[in-house]
């Protein structure tokens, strides 16, 4: 699905990612954990194509294509999805209109005709049930006046609508109460197939009780310092990041 090789990235001349290597196959869920400032959000932004970051070294292959050569919109059209840590509020643009534009621009990219209005609405109805998103919210402006939990559920709702090949969830669990967390996790588990993959970026192990990863990676100081199975998350939860910090401080 995606192969990241020796990825280095800087912002304002400061190197944040210092050689990331990661290989993710279809049907897998990977968790990336790490303390604050380790580069978790930078990694997701770089993959999604945010302009603020400069890739100084390395390459990323996404389904055989050079991801780093593409604009953000083309990455999304190729099937990459980023669930934002801080979803942006866009007053005056309805969620529905926003999603319709997104769905149809992605379809156009793949040479498909725009979706029929009634099919689109049927899909909206079905997918919003998945994340228990109030129908009123889909008619409101994008994220405007949404609570923290509603914003995160809206991210998962968008993911369901766009049906990506690879979804990166950037700290989707931060600040969520347990009910909202379960809803988000249930959304992901329902959407998971053998043909797509998920990267769950999180600070806390708690989410991984509900979204069970195949692999866990620990990111520290811009590098993946340790990889393992789901038990690594439990280990991390028990011992905290201090041990990791101490061990890899000088690397």
């Amino acid at each position: 699905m995606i192969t990241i090789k020796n990825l280095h990235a800087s912002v304002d001349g400061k190197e944040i990612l210092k050689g990331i290597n990661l290989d993710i196959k279809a049907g897998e869920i990977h968790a990336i954990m790490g303390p604050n400032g380790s580069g978790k959000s930078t990694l997701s932004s770089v993959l999604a194509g945010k302009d603020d970051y400069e890739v100084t070294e390395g390459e990323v292959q996404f389904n055989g294509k050079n991801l780093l050569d593409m604009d953000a919109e083309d990455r999304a059209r190729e099937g990459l999805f980023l669930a934002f840590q801080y979803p942006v509020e866009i007053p005056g643009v309805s969620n529905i209109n926003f999603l319709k534009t997104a769905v149809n621009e992605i379809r156009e990219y793949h040479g498909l005709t725009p979706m029929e209005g009634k099919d689109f609405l049927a899909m909206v109805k079905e997918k919003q049930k998945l994340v228990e998103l109030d129908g009123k919210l889909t008619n409101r402006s994008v994220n405007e006046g949404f609570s923290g939990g509603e914003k995160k559920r809206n991210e998962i709702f968008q993911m369901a609508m766009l049906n990506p090949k690879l979804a990166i969830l950037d700290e989707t669990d931060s600040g969520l109460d347990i009910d909202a967390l379960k809803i988000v996790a249930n959304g992901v588990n329902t959407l998971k197939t053998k043909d797509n993959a998920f990267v769950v970026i999180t600070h806390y192990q708690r989410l991984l009780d509900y979204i069970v990863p195949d692999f866990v990676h620990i990111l520290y100081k811009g590098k993946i310092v340790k990889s393992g199975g789901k038990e690594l998350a439990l280990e991390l939860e028990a011992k905290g990041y201090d041990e990791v910090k101490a061990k890899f401080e000088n690397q």
Partner: protein
Amino acid sequence: MIAEKSHTAQYIIEKISPSAGKVAFMNDTVLSKALLFLEKNGMPSNKYEDYKYCNVDAILKKEFKNIEQKFNQQVSVDAFKIADTYTLVMLNGHFSSTLSDTISEKGLHLSALSNMPELAKTKLGSIANVESDAFIAMNTAFSADGLYIKIDKNTVLSKPIFILHITAALSECFVNSRVLIDLEEGASASIYEEQILIGESKAFTNYLSEKFIGRNAKLNTCLIQSQSQLGYSVNTSQVALQADAHYDNTTITLNGQLVRNNHNVELLGENAQAHLNGLFTANGTSLIDNHTLMDHRVPHCESNELYKGIINHKGIGVFNGKIFVRKDAQKTNAYQSSKNILLSDDATVNAKPQLEIYANDVKCSHGTSTGKIDENAMFYLNARGIGKESAKKMLLSSFAQEVILKIENPELQEKIDQAFTNQI
């Protein structure tokens, strides 16, 4: 600033003044004052503080030779109509009864200014002071005709009125157009206006409206300016509110080579409220200039202003908002906000709040911001597969909605939303 007599003054007096003094409906004293003012001061150049960014003199000097034109060609107005409104058509400043709807509604009086009731003539020029601005003077001296709308005491209009102002230019011309709106105590009305330009020539439109809003009366207005890049216009709206009166206006400027709007509101009775909103797009080399004056003369009044601009290419946007709180106008609430988005490096905006407060117990605030399209929002849309162009349109539309949503009529809102989307 000391007035400096310009070439244009000379030009007006020599070339055009033969047609002046023929404004039969105008009070003689007002008319002679207007001519005297023009003769003495001429048209404002950019040496005048009020027209610093808006050099109308330079344009008037070289381009516009004829005042008013007869326009006898067929005009179709259907495409501009708004559902469930009375359409009235002004053609080069003349009220066209053939193109307008026939209206019979109790308490509503409509006529050309030239046919207005004798008693009402004292109102003409009573709030638009000919000695305050050359364009008011010019309009007073040269108006061919105009429209008179009066709404009787406690009459609530059953439908909004839509005035379509057509400037039809067969060759470069200068049109003076005028409307007087008079709402008696407790009357309530919505009056929408649109300015369009037809013909292949440049035209200068000098439009003046005087709005009298009586005690406890409510006037809701919207002006859509959709002249083409051939259009040059100065629009003065002079508004007087009595106690407990409400005035809401939204000015939407979609294009025009030069558009100067002077919106002057006098709050004359306690508990009056005025809201001015504006949205404009300046593309190419357009100059869009909104000057507002909120004159709080008495206590307990409220005013709000929200102006938003999107400036592209080499366009120029100007907002000058003057709030005047007189010594007696205690407990005034006056707010003003101007926000602009610049889409290119050559686009400029001059935003200037001007607060003059002589009372000591008031709440006044102003804010102005100018920036580019929000990059985080742009990335958010791109990350959902929405391309740069669509995303830009979405974000500009989002920016504009705050103003568009203030328009009460859904049909009008839709019309403006469409026109705006086509423009960005």
